[in-house]
Each structure stands twice: as C-alpha cells, then as structure tokens.
C-alpha cells in the first residue's frame, strides 16, 4: 500500500457513510455487552430491515461513549443523540419514531449535559464514532495518515522532536516525559530493539485502557508503529490482561487488518521500515504492569520486577533496548504527529500537557469513563461531571490513582489534576482511577482494602513489600476490631515509610499511600477507633474480620 491509497480509502469510506441519512450506532464495549448490547445490535438491524430502511439507515457497532451506568446505549447520527437504557424490544419503536417520524424519544435521551461539556476527548476521539472492528472506519477519520506523514515526510529525529515538544508524559502513572524516553531508546546502539505497549491495566476500578482498546484499537497500533519508527525497533508486543476478552479479540482483528493493508509488517507504506506486532496475554498479575515486571512476563517468566539500572531503554527484553509505553500514551502520538507538538502542548497545563482518561466510580451519580484536560480540579470532576454524591449521603473522600493512590478529603478538592500536584498531596496519577466514597464507608476499612489488594498482588521478591504489607494489614485489622493502640499508629507509619522508600518497584513504593494519606487527612477516624472504640461510619467493630493473631 502507498500513502496515497490511505487518502483514497478515506474518501471512499466518507462517501459510503454519507450515502446513509441516519446512522444508528450501538455501543458494543464491555460495559454494554453484559447488558445485552449484542442483542440490541441485532434488534436494530432487524428493525431497520423490517421497516425497509436499509438504504436510509445504517446500523453499526461502536466503542464506549463513557456513560456506562446507563448501559446499554445507542447513538443516532446526525445530531449525536444518545439513547440510554435501551432494550431490544424498544429498537423498533426508536427506529420508527426517530428515523421515520423524525421525532426524538425524550424518555430515552441521556440528559446530562455537564457530563460531556467538561470533558475533552483526545485519546478517546473515535470512541462512539467508528466501528472498532473496521480498519476502513479508522482510516476514514484520518487514521494512519499520521503514520504516513511520519514515514514519508519526517526523520525519526523529527518524530522524537515533535513528541518532546508536545510535553507528552507517560500515562501509565509515573509521568516520565515520553520524548525523553524515546530518545534514550533511540540512542541505544544494540539491536534488535523492541517496543512494548502496556495494556495490563490491573487497578481495581479502572478500565480506561480497555475501553480504548475496544473502541479504537488502531490508534494504539498506529501510535506504536510511529514509536517503533522513531526509536528504530522492528518488533512490538502488546501486553494485555487476559481478563479483557473483548479487547483481546478487537486487537487481534485490528492487527490482522493492519497487516493485510501493509500498515504493519515489512516495507510499511512502501518504505524500508519493517515492524511487526505480537499480542501477549497476561494471566492475572497486577504487578506485571510494572515496567520491568512486564518484561519478565513477556519473556515467559514470573512477573517479578528487576532492579534498575540497567534501564529497559538500555537492557530490556532479552537484554535489548526496549521502549515501554502505556497504550494511552501511544494513542496520543498520531495526533501529535498530525497537528504538531506545539499544538498538543497548549492543551492542559504547561507542565502537564494533554488529557487523561479516568474511570470515575464509587458513590457518584454519573459513574463512567471520562477524559479531561490536565489541570482540571477534582471538584469539577466529582461534582460537575460526576454529579456529586447521590441524595442523602455526604461526601467523605476521593481516592485518586487506584489501589496505591491517595485518599483525599473535601478540603483538597480544589486540587488540580496533574502529576506534581497529586504527588505532593500524597496521591498519584496512577492509571487513572477516581473512586468517590461517602460517609457510609470507613476510612480504616478503605485503607485496609487497598493494602489487602497490594498484599495479594505483591510478587514477593523484596522483603519490605512481601513481609511488610501483611504486617500493615494486621495492624489495620487490629484497629478495626477496636484492639489498636496509639503505639500501633506509630508502627504503622514507620512501616509505611519503610515500604515506600525501600521497596524494589512501583507497587511497593506506592502501596502505603492509602495508609499515609488517611493517617494524614483522617487521623481523627483512626483515633476514634482506638480511643473511643467507635467507627464513625458504623462499619467496623462487628468482628466480621478474622483478626490475625497467629
């Protein structure tokens, strides 16, 4: 395939699309499928056929629009009307009214303007727009033109320059400047080099990467291929959680399509650049998402992290230079190449450019998947997009950054979301989980829940994390049944600092964050367990937890 052909496919696709007056798009992502999205798709197809509207109305699948709490959802173009909680039996009526009578069925319409107005969809630009299973759809919205531009008009150095200028930083959590990382790998002289796309999103309550893979797999592939061109790699791996069957299927299909179009493989777009992508499945290990553990896992070993240095950029997969990027980071790349790094650097804040996807869950009115510009405040996210805590309950805390994130109180809600501010507050960006908890939840119990998670997911290699986290949990358990002492709080804090400072990898180094932030912002609640024998949320002291005494 030649670069010009991409343009041609895009035009043909556009014409085909325009041939239909109405386009009905059914969300077929993991959020909607369990609630009958497949049946719904079929029902709409049947309804259109039954009413004889095949030439007027096109029914297609699409990716997640983010309003997962009202699943399944259907979008009707033109006008981008979002219908919520649609059942297969409603399909015919909706087609009849909307398409034939031109009347919008108000009872189904999603009426939460604020949910979308505060968002900025960059990474998820195509979610809800295209059919993720068709590469032609992706091409029709400008897909792979960035790859063509990079290969035909830019040198690898220029690509890296644009990414550096854009200010893009790693979306996997640590926020390392992407351009710098690419530069390290590009400078390494050893061959071959590898690119690894990290899709091992293991945080409980986070599903941003999965949504991206299900809604727009080609954005990942294109970003990866551009990255490979920039650093001089010929082989790439997408490492994905095995718990994401739909995302795996979607990506598999996308890789096949890209191969058959010659967009990956040998002599891509007629150039001398070769790049091949292989999908690798995880098997349920959160720690495998860590930068060096992912390498062990791809090599078929236990996913234990390795000490750095040597850094993966120098010695990664099989001791060769390896670029590891989160898929969300990679999905930004085509836009940066097309519009220029300077354009991208204007989005968000000067130090933290671009957007970030968050899974907003817990006790909010509108949970779902959102994408917001960096620098937005937590308040805007929780209250304006999320709609605040449901009636009758009181906001207590917001957990930012997944299981090893921080637990922030109401007074911190004006905090802007960027790497530095969050880290300073004791939280992390993490992979993008925001969980709101209300006054029904106990802070100690919440901290224990996260410690529990990290303890289960600890690989066991280094002592502070392996042996320290069970002790932290033991103390929290003790406090929860009212047997804690103030001395325990001191030990708890000291242990937390040890684990934070002396652990080998990011999992251990961030695992105590929930404890440290709750000790910092909610010490009163701990003390009320210890001194008054009372749980302010009324959750503890019911002795349902087995206290580890042995």
């Amino acid at each position, binding site marked *: 395939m030649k670069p010009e052909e991409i343009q041609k496919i895009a035009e043909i696709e556009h014409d085909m699309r325009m041939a239909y007056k109405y386009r009905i798009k059914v969300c077929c992502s993991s959020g909607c499928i369990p*609630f009958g999205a497949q049946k719904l798709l079929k029902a709409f197809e049947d309804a259109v056929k039954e009413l004889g509207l095949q030439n007027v109305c096109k029914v297609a699948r699409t990716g997640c629009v983010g309003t997962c709490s009202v699943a399944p959802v259907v979008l009707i173009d033109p006008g981008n009307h979002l219908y919520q909680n649609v059942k297969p039996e409603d399909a015919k009526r909706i087609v009849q009214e909307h398409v034939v009578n031109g009347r919008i069925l108000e009872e189904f319409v999603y009426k939460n303007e604020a949910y979308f107005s505060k968002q900025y969809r960059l990474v998820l630009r195509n979610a809800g727009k295209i059919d993720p299973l068709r590469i032609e759809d992706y091409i029709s919205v400008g897909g792979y033109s960035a790859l063509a531009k990079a290969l035909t008009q830019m040198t690898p150095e220029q690509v890296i320059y644009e990414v550096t200028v854009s200010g893009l930083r790693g979306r996997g959590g640590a926020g390392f400047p992407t351009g710098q990382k690419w530069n390290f790998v590009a400078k390494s002289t050893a061959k071959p080099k590898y690119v690894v796309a990290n899709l091992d999103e293991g945080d409980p309550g986070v*599903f941003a990467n999965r949504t991206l893979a299900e809604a727009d797999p080609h954005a990942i592939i294109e970003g990866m291929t551009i990255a490979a061109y920039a650093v001089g790699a010929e082989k790439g791996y997408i490492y994905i959680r095995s718990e994401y069957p739909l995302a795996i299927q979607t990506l598999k299909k996308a890789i096949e399509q890209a191969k058959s179009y010659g967009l990956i493989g040998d002599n891509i777009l007629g150039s001398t650049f070769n790049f091949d992508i292989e999908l690798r499945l995880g098997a349920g290990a959160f720690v495998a998402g860590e930068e060096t553990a992912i390498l062990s896992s791809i090599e078929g070993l236990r996913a234990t992290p390795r000490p750095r240095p040597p850094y993966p950029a120098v010695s990664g997969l099989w001791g060769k230079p390896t670029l590891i990027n989160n898929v969300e980071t990679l999905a930004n790349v085509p836009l940066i190449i097309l519009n220029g790094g300077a354009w991208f650097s204007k989005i968000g804040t000067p130090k933290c450019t671009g957007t970030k996807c968050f899974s907003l869950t817990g006790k909010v009115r509108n949970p779902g998947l959102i994408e917001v510009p960096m620098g937005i405040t937590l308040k805007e996210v929780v209250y304006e997009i999320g709609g605040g805590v449901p009636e009758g309950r009181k906001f207590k805390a917001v957990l930012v950054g997944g299981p090893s994130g921080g637990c922030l109180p109401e007074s911190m809600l004006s905090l802007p979301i960027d790497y530095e501010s969050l880290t300073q507050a004791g939280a992390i960006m993490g992979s993008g989980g925001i969980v709101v908890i209300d006054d029904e939840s106990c802070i100690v119990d919440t901290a224990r829940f996260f410690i529990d998670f990290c303890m289960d997911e600890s690989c066991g290699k280094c002592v502070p994390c392996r042996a320290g986290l069970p002790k932290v949990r033991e103390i929290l358990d003790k406090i929860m049944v009212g047997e804690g002492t103030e001395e325990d709080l001191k030990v708890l804090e000291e242990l937390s600092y040890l684990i934070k400072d002396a652990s080998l990898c990011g999992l251990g180094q961030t695992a105590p964050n929930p404890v440290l932030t709750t000790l910092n912002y909610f010490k009163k609640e701990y003390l009320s367990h210890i001194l008054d024998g009372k749980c302010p949320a009324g959750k503890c002291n019911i002795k349902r937890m087995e206290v580890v005494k042995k």
Partner: protein
Amino acid sequence: MTKNIYSNRLPVVQQLREANELSEYPKTVSDKRIILIDKTIAAYGYRRDALLEKLHVAQNIYGYLEKKILLHISEKLKIPPSQVYGVATFYNYFKLKKPGSHAITFCLGTACYVKGAEEILSAVEREFNVKRGETSADGKISIFVTRCVGACAMAPNVIIDDEMIGKATKETVLDKIRSLL
C-alpha cells in the same frame, strides 16, 4: 566408594508413591487433547518465552492445569519443571485444581467493594458453605474472587457461569445460584 544417589533414594520414592503422594513418572500423557498443546508449541517455534500463551491454551483445553500437563509442557519446551510450576502458580488466572461445575466470580474491585460486594460474597459463602477460592464439597460450585471486571459503573458485579449480573444484590445472586443447583 561412590554411591549412586538416585538408586539410594528409590526406597523413599517407592514409599511416597505407594502413599499416592507423587505424580507419576515417567511422564507419558495418553490423551489426544495434548496434540492441541503440541501444535501451539510448534506454532510458536518451541520458543520458551511464550510460556504463558501455552499455559493459556492448556487451561482452555483442560479447564485447569494438571501436573502432568505442566510436566509435558516443561519437557517439550525444555524448561525446568520448577520454573513452569513457579510461573503457573504466580499468575492468578491459572488454576491448578479442578474447578466446580458452576463458577461464581465476585468482583472485589474498588467500586464493587465500596458498593457492598463483600456482604453479598459473605452471604453466598454462608449459604452454600464454600469459601472464596474454593470448590464446594459436592463439586458443584466454585467461588472465585477477581479484582475488577471493568464494569465499575454497574457495581457491584457478579459473574455466574459467564453471565454478568450488574448492580447485584444479595437476593438476586442467591436466587440465581439456587436456580442452578
């Protein structure tokens, strides 16, 4: 005097074997399904790095990873058995014990936990006398716990034999399981 260490150990091995504490050696697997695993191994060109992929295939075929299967993979790929075992037990997804005929998976991700998944799980544990991660005595149900199935907006979620129950309550889940038995 040099001793043959192997022959010296035989009596102990014999005793253990009689007590049925050993998997059988030598390692022949007389099972046609094993061919499917062999094919995957060949498809990956006997590459050792794709061990996880092979374990996935084996588990898809057999439902769980028996020791003889692990040994077979170890022999075929020329990876030490302890290493295969170490990998298979590291990852939560691989099961080394035969699961029950109905799998009930509880999501204990943050969102589900905050919305009370733990209470539902405890109720199921009590009613059917099975602990999390275990299989009931009659082999009918297994309870698994997973950290996030990614449908947080519909929390709490329970998956019963591939069917997802969103916004689950104690009653809906218990009723559903009762209807299976």
